């Protein structure tokens, strides 16, 4: 029969609801849906979720604090642990343990010992956590907030908290607790190694943080003052567009900022007599032309023109339609009766290729328009007017023939 470990069981349950926990942590609250309903019920039973407004749920404060500490999440004005309360509890437990011990109540003594050990750890962990938070805030100069006013308020908050902790560590009577626990080896060792011996280091860290916070506060105040000064000066200049400073350059002892020394134009030259520079200077000398501005006067040899042209003129291939027009007109010019363009198109598909019949007719007409006056041909249209008498004619064919002399 296996022993049920409640811690392992709890962690296993948390693991199954991890996505819901993460959503509630990052969003601050979570609404119940079909998908997360089981998780929410389970977490409520475990007292890790509590109801929020508008049917939402949020993580319980203790669980959220645990996650904040574990994830080292930066919180604004973070509250910090109640270390004073822990100290008071420790003192009470030690007192009660002494009484139980004196009265011979062994069972109670054991119980108080367990609780005291835990209280010592609680204090050490709480101070440790507090230091981590404070150090993070100080290192980033309160990067989570942007304005100087906010940074100043954050600074004051943490300054107060650090100061309280320092006061607590300095005023608490550790020696009394140590004396009371002296007869109990285990407890005395826990108290000494976990807390008493670490207190000086804690105190030292807290003092250095406090020093930094004080310095930051001073700087923030200075920055704030400077910003105010800039605004005031700008306002003054806006209100007094003709304002000019008084003649501060004519006072007997001008201010330091007016005493800037005259800038000197510095030019350096190498010492040509220095033997260690010889190599470098020779290197530079080799890259310089023998005389400045010298030009290459080498004349180009006289040329001659060859009598025979060695190049053959290459003309581009003639387009098929151009060739067809040329051949058609050449043939038609010789014909007395003329040659129908449509008949020629039908008779010469090889020459015309893919040229369509209407395009061919238009091309023949265009050739006549361009060269008809100079050409030695006559053109006759086979046409008829359009049925609606709009002035246009329908051309059925074009006949080209020899021009009458």
């Amino acid at each position: 029969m296996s022993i049920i470990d409640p811690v392992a069981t709890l962690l296993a349950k948390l693991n199954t609801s991890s996505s819901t926990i993460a959503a509630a942590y990052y969003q601050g609250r979570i609404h119940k849906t079909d998908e997360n309903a089981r998780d929410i019920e389970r977490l409520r039973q475990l007292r890790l979720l509590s109801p929020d407004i508008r049917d939402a749920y949020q993580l319980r404060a203790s669980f959220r604090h645990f996650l904040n500490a574990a994830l080292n999440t930066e919180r604004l004005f973070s509250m910090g642990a109640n270390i004073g309360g822990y100290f008071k509890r420790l003192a009470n437990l030690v007192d009660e343990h002494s009484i139980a011990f004196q009265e011979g109540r062994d069972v109670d003594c054991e119980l108080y010992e367990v609780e005291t050990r835990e209280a010592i750890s609680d204090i050490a962990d709480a101070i440790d956590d507090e230091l981590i938070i404070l150090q993070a805030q100080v290192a980033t100069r309160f990067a989570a907030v942007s304005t100087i006013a906010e940074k100043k308020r954050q600074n004051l908050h943490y300054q107060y908290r650090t100061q309280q902790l320092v006061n607590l560590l300095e005023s608490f009577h550790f020696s009394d607790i140590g004396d009371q626990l002296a007869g109990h080896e285990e407890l005395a060792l826990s108290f000494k190694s976990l807390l008493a011996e670490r207190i000086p280091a804690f105190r030292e860290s807290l003092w250095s943080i406090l020093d930094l916070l004080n310095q930051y506060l001073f700087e923030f105040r200075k920055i704030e003052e400077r910003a105010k000064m800039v605004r005031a000066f700008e306002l003054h200049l806006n209100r007094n567009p003709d304002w000019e400073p008084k003649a501060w350059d004519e006072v007997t002892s001008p201010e330091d900022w007016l005493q800037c020394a005259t800038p000197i134009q510095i030019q350096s030259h190498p010492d040509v007599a220095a033997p260690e520079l010889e190599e470098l200077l020779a290197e530079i000398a080799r890259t310089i032309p023998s005389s400045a501005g010298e030009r290459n006067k080498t004349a180009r040899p006289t040329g001659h023109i060859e009598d025979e042209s060695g190049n053959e003129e290459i003309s581009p291939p003639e387009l098929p339609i151009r060739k067809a027009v040329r051949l058609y007109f050449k043939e038609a010019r010789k014909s007395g009766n003329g040659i129908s363009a449509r008949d020629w198109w039908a008779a010469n598909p090889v020459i015309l290729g893919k040229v369509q019949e209407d395009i061919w007719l238009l091309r023949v007409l265009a050739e006549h328009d361009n060269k008809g006056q100079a050409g030695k041909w006559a053109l006759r249209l086979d046409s008829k007017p359009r049925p609606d008498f709009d002035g246009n004619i329908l051309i059925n064919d074009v006949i080209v023939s020899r021009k009458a002399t």
Partner: protein
Amino acid sequence: MFDQVATHLLEGKFICESTTPEAFRWLKSDEAKQEISTYLGKIGRCLSKSPNDQAYYATWAHVGSNERAEVKRVFAGIKQTIRPLIHFITLSMEVEKKDSSPVSGDRLEYAMLLKAVTENAHLFEVLREFGTMGKEFTVTDASAKGMLDKVIKQMEQWGYLILINREQESYRFTGKLDYYYQVMEFLMENEGITDPSSQEQEDGAEQRRLI
């Protein structure tokens, strides 16, 4: 490093973390300061620093009649730059929506400035006002980009900005700004320029008391 620092100082440059970081860090040590001061002292100059130790520069060891002309030249330069520079500082504060004025090392993104002055009519108007502040800001191209380019170039030339990334067009404010704040603080204190907000608060308190 000594020769670099000495040369920069003699040339009238301000040495700060933004412009010459190595030289600035070197100059922070007491030995380096001593070395440079001794050298400058021999030629009638001394090493000065801005109030918050953000920039070093060379000043006259003594101001006599010979140095007066230079003092006048420096003051003329301050008078010329004071208005545009304060205008530029407030413009960059408005663009970045910050309640703190820029200090040495603060970045300034050209793209962000351009976007802001292009999209915001008020900021464009603030930018246009540079046109009334001297011939250094006169532009033929009256677009937001044309004007902003001119202003940035001028601030760079006066030594208050330095280009740190050409591709991203990122600039950084230099330590010379600390020197400028010193001048401004002096003028406010000595010319009776007061913070109107504190004056208004005092007036309000007085009014409440009377009521």
